[in-house]
């Protein structure tokens, strides 16, 4: 199976300093051309899919700027008109959606895409998000994943019972803990039976949900060993659910800074970091993340590790990550704050800075070391990164026989080399 390639779609790139770069066009918001160009270019590079992240809440302030928010299914339907083979993963929140509505729109979008849709199911957190949907605060932790699991059960039942051309749908009866659904879908069944299922989450519940359901899980990792551990764990969990371990792809996030020379690559990285931090109160940001006021402490001293509380909010993963990073690398408070602030998602991924050959070398090394089945390119700046990646890195990967040089089919199931749901029995939880 060739190395899987995915591109995280955004207007300017996933580095929060990207939009401030001289080359970034901020004259039109949203900049739809940017999304289309990135998708079309990724398709030229024979990427398996592009990925649309989403949280249905307005994000105030400057700390994490990744572009304009738009409805993912609408975007996917629009991108469908400009592409032919590349898959599109749309994110939806299982916490703040109901399965019937999602089943309908996803089925329609998959039919528009001819089998190229994947859905990333997120057990969203965040009180702010909850308040857009009738709740005073986010769902309790143990509810979120239970609801997410049941959500996927219900949409799967609806799709399995839906009609194909010429036949009518059957009514499903689902009376569960979170959803009470007696309904039939008026949309024809998605092309392969149901859209590809994607997950992204490193918590035990997220890993478990992925092992039970997902065709792909998006992972972040900061060291090779940690990524290997994660990979092995996901595969083992899939086996425990009676699945072929190859049927769950582990897609590792990587943020590549590509340059003709190493110096050029580092220049880009430093420019973007500098753009983002300029004028920012990084210690306030870290304080918010760790739910502890760090301002009284010496910025050139270490974090007050023994005083930090248990983080309960949206950013458990990030809080853990930076605390661990500070401890392991002996970072000062100021350095940790800077790292947590810059790059948005960058610190969640592994970062590669160098020439195309160096980047291909590292991607190959990690892939051969069983850390992943492929990569999610978390492009720091768009369109530059995807243009460079497709023009310079992809030919290297293809030359080494690691990635495809042409599509062998036109659905996501084809790209994944996966059996469609019609060919496999459903897994009960």
């Amino acid at each position, binding site marked *: 199976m060739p190395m899987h390639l995915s591109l995280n779609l955004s207007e300017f790139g996933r580095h929060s300093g990207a939009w401030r770069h001289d080359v970034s066009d901020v004259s039109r918001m949203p900049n739809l051309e940017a999304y289309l160009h990135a998708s079309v270019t990724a398709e030229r590079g024979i990427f398996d899919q592009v990925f649309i992240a989403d949280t249905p809440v307005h994000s105030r302030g400057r700390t994490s700027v990744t572009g304009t928010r738009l*409805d993912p299914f609408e975007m996917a339907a629009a991108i469908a008109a400009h592409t032919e083979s590349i898959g599109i993963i749309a994110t939806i929140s299982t916490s703040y959606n109901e399965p019937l509505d999602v089943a309908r729109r996803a089925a329609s979008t998959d039919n528009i895409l001819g089998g190229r849709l994947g859905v990333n199911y997120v057990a969203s957190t965040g009180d702010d998000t909850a308040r*857009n949907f009738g709740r005073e605060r986010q769902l309790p932790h143990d509810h979120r994943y239970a609801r997410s699991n049941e959500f996927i059960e219900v949409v799967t039942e609806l799709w399995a019972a839906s009609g194909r*051309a010429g036949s009518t*749908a059957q009514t499903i009866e689902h009376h569960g803990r979170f959803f009470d659904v007696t309904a039939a879908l*008026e949309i*024809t069944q998605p092309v392969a039976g149901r859209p590809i299922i994607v997950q992204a989450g490193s918590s035990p519940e997220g890993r478990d949900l992925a092992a039970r359901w997902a065709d792909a899980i998006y992972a972040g990792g900061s060291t090779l060993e940690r990524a290997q551990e994660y990979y092995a764990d996901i595969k083992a969990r899939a086996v425990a659910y009676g699945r072929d371990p190859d049927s769950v792809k582990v897609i590792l996030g990587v943020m590549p800074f590509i340059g003709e020379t190493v110096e050029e690559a580092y220049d880009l990285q430093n420019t973007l970091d500098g753009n983002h931090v300029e004028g920012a109160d990084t210690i306030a940001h870290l304080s918010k993340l760790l739910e502890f006021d760090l301002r009284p402490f010496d910025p050139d001293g270490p974090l007050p590790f023994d005083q930090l509380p248990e983080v309960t909010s949206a950013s458990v993963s990030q809080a853990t990550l930076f605390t661990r990073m500070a401890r392991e690398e002996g970072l000062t408070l100021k350095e940790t704050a800077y790292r947590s602030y810059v790059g948005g998602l960058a610190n969640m991924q592994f970062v590669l800075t160098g020439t195309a050959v160096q980047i291909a070398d590292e991607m190959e090394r990690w892939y051969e070391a069983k850390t992943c089945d492929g990569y999610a390119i978390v492009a720091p700046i768009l369109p530059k990164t995807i243009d460079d990646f497709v023009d310079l890195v992809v030919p290297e990967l293809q030359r080494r026989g690691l990635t495809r040089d042409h599509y062998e089919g036109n659905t996501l199931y084809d790209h994944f080399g996966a059996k469609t749901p019609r060919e496999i029995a459903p897994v009960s939880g």
Partner: protein
Amino acid sequence: MIITTRLSAGLYADLDEWSSVARRIETSGVDALVLDRETGPRPAPFEPTTLAGYLSQVTETIGIVAEDSALYPQPYHVARRLATLDHLTEGRAGWRLGTVGLTTEARGYEWVSPSASVDRVRATEFAEIVLELWDSWEEGAERPDKRAGDFHDDSRIHPIDYRSTSFLVRGPLDVPRSPQGRPAITVDVRDADDAELASIFADVAVIRTDSASTATELAAKLVDAIAGSGREGEVRILLAVSDLDRTGCLSVSAEPGEAVREIADAVAAIGAHGAEVVSDGSLESLDWLCDGIAPALTEPTSLPAESPAGLLARLGLADAARFGRRAA
């Protein structure tokens, strides 16, 4: 006069067919394509909002109006997806309020409708919330300032803090203000309650009845209700017509010349601004519409070529569109 066309999202299974039909209708001068949910016994491959997303990319000037529920599940999602559609179409989008649920989904959501009158209240609140969310970004709030480091101007983006017995929506919307300011809103009018709802929310109110006398009554009720809501001049009234029988709207001749006269007379008789043509998407019906009816009844748009050809502007409503209407 204004001419719109209503098609079911289930009419064609092939996107190339959809594209060529949409473009043909666009070229004929029709002002907007209204996409309805398929309600027949056979399932459809597409539903209106996502089909509209696709068609946004293969059309250039025609309005694209998608039916979406004003009952379930949540107004925030409807506000996002229609605002996104307005961005994708560069200001040509519209929302047709779905105030009647499909029987196949009656027990499909957390909220179960107890009665039509409760539906009415819920639809009213739902539409209020969507309108307020569309208005939560002031014009220009999305302008990024590279030097200052502000991606958008938070001081000009406002929560809506909507609370009722059914809804809690803090907002603001996460999608920026759309090119037209907000998508256009169309409401079907079949009875006095519909007229009331339309008077509060509609940019376009479509009178649907197969009886000419009922059409006259409904038009009168609508005009009264619009006056009562203080919105004279802000609502375009259309009469639903069809070359087909048993469509729930006024049936006119299949012979285009005759039909043009019948439509013109019927529209004038009730003081409407135009007609919504319900088509079954067949070649005969499309020929009748695109070669006969639309060219005879529409005028080439009088907007200057350079101006953004938004749907509200096309309907002559760009200045009249007000926001944040709360029902009494």
